[in-house]
């Protein structure tokens, strides 16, 4: 798959050199960053609709933060600090699955349990990173926390593509069932939906997509892109079709603008922060539109 991305990149670069595309695309890392944005935008936006429907926003934030600890463990185990995917995926999957398992077993509400997991995981991550601080350049932390498009390579793009395809293959055939399980578990069970399995599936989906996006958006903010575009779309849409389409669109605009604007304007802003700021602006516009346009306001929330 790496070869595919290499060819694609060369194609875009030569188009940029000949003036067909903007000049900044002549740089390989800019093309890589854009490709990454094009892959994660729709996946985060689409999955975000389910995050909003199922009220999983806090969970997706927590998994993003768990990624920080995953990176620390990866560096400790000797994985390359530019992409410690083994530890990242394993730690975050354990985090998500254990959380879901315990919320089935204990009678704690999910938000309480997430609060516990989030803080313990962050404490572990912070401790590990400080232990490691002698061994690595501490500026790497900045990349982990807030994302760095400059370091996205073909390897990262392959991981992103695989995760995106896997997420699509799992989420689309189960989209209705995932929703139904949260509307009324009993009705879902009568209709043959394996409710518990759907809970686990959703936790795994959110974890995979979140972790794959950490490189571009960063551990602190990655959860936000699962929430903000879908939240903005929820305010404007009148049907599920519009909700899904707008959420995907908003996530695409956010990732692409967030990656390109700092490069074009030569601003020293980390990509993750820029992406979330664009998403935040879209959210603000949606909120404003909702309160100003009578057609949107009329449909009571």
């Amino acid at each position, binding site marked *: 798959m790496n070869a595919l991305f290499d060819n694609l990149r060369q194609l875009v670069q030569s188009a940029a050199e000949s003036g067909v595309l903007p000049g900044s695309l002549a740089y390989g890392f800019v093309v890589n960053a854009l490709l990454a944005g094009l892959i994660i935008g729709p996946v985060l936006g689409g999955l975000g609709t389910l995050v*909003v429907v199922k009220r999983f926003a806090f969970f997706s934030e927590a998994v993003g933060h768990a990624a920080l600890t995953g990176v620390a463990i990866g560096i400790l185990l000797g994985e390359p600090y530019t992409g410690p995917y083994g530890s990242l995926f394993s730690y975050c999957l354990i985090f998500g699955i254990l959380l879901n398992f315990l919320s089935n077993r204990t009678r704690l509400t999910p938000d309480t349990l997430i609060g516990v997991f989030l803080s313990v995981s962050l404490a572990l991550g912070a401790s590990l990173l400080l232990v490691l601080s002698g061994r690595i350049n501490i500026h790497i932390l900045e990349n982990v926390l807030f994302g760095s498009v400059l370091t996205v390579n073909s390897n990262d793009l392959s991981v992103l593509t695989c995760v995106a395809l896997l997420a699509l293959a799992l989420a689309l055939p189960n*989209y*209705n069932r995932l929703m139904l399980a949260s509307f*009324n578990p009993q*009705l879902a*069970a009568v209709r043959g939906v394996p409710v518990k399995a759907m809970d686990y599936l959703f936790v795994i989906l959110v974890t995979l997509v979140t972790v794959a996006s950490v490189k571009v958006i960063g551990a602190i903010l990655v959860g936000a892109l699962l929430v903000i575009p879908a939240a903005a779309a929820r305010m404007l849409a*009148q*049907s599920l079709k519009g909700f899904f389409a707008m959420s995907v669109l908003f996530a695409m605009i956010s990732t692409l603008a967030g990656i390109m604007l700092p490069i074009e304007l030569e601003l020293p802003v980390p990509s993750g922060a820029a992406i979330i700021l664009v998403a935040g602006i879209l959210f603000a516009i949606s909120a404003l539109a909702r309160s100003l346009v009578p057609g949107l306001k009329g449909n*009571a929330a």
Partner: protein
Amino acid sequence: MSGPVAAHSAGALGPTLTFDRIGLTLGRTDILSDVGFTVAAGSVHALVGPNGGGKSSLVKTLLGQMPHRGKLSVVWPGERPGIIGYIPQALEFDRGLPMTVNDFMAAMCQRKPAFLGLSRARAAEITHALERVGMQDKRNRRMGALSGGERQRVLLAQGLVPSPALVVLDEPMSALDEAGVRVFEELLDGWRAQRVTVLWIEHDLEAVGRLADRVTGLNRQVLCDGPPAQVLTPDRLLALFSTRPRVASLTEERAA
């Protein structure tokens, strides 16, 4: 309408349900003890009783959601189990969700993601179900913008797709207005004509008396069971809805 049980079973589309000494304990509370009664195939069977009397728990047990004691058998007329239509009391969802009635029906009845629209295989059935409950003109309205009665009608509609052989209703009339009650009565007539088995939890005793073939009074145990005319008498109802049911006297009466 409330003919003998044997006549009902012949040629029915729905199953016979037998609850045999069903017991259910949650923590240290006995929710149900020694519950036994039979729902005849193709009959409309009402379940009445006070709140906390275990009606919903019994339905959960029937739908396989509760570990329980005793034996519960569902005997279908055919080789394979038929389709169960379940109409819950309420749905947990965000009222502001941009989900239309169509979207909701699609999410309930098909695998194709609801945001891509109705699947071809189900579209006609869904339209027909919405027509039967009188919601076809409001199918593009948001679920959250519907009144309680309208939402209840949509819940009834989802129970019609795919066409069920056993219908389990959890207080379907509580949110319905008068027109909605008429819609519900028509559905009930339709199920009766098709010989579908209906188990129906209801608070409205007048409706039960008018529409059910048989009634079971449940308050942690079966306090009465029979045709509405026999069960819905002032004495029995007083016992059923009392906080401390006069179990002893009733048990004796049943034994006699």
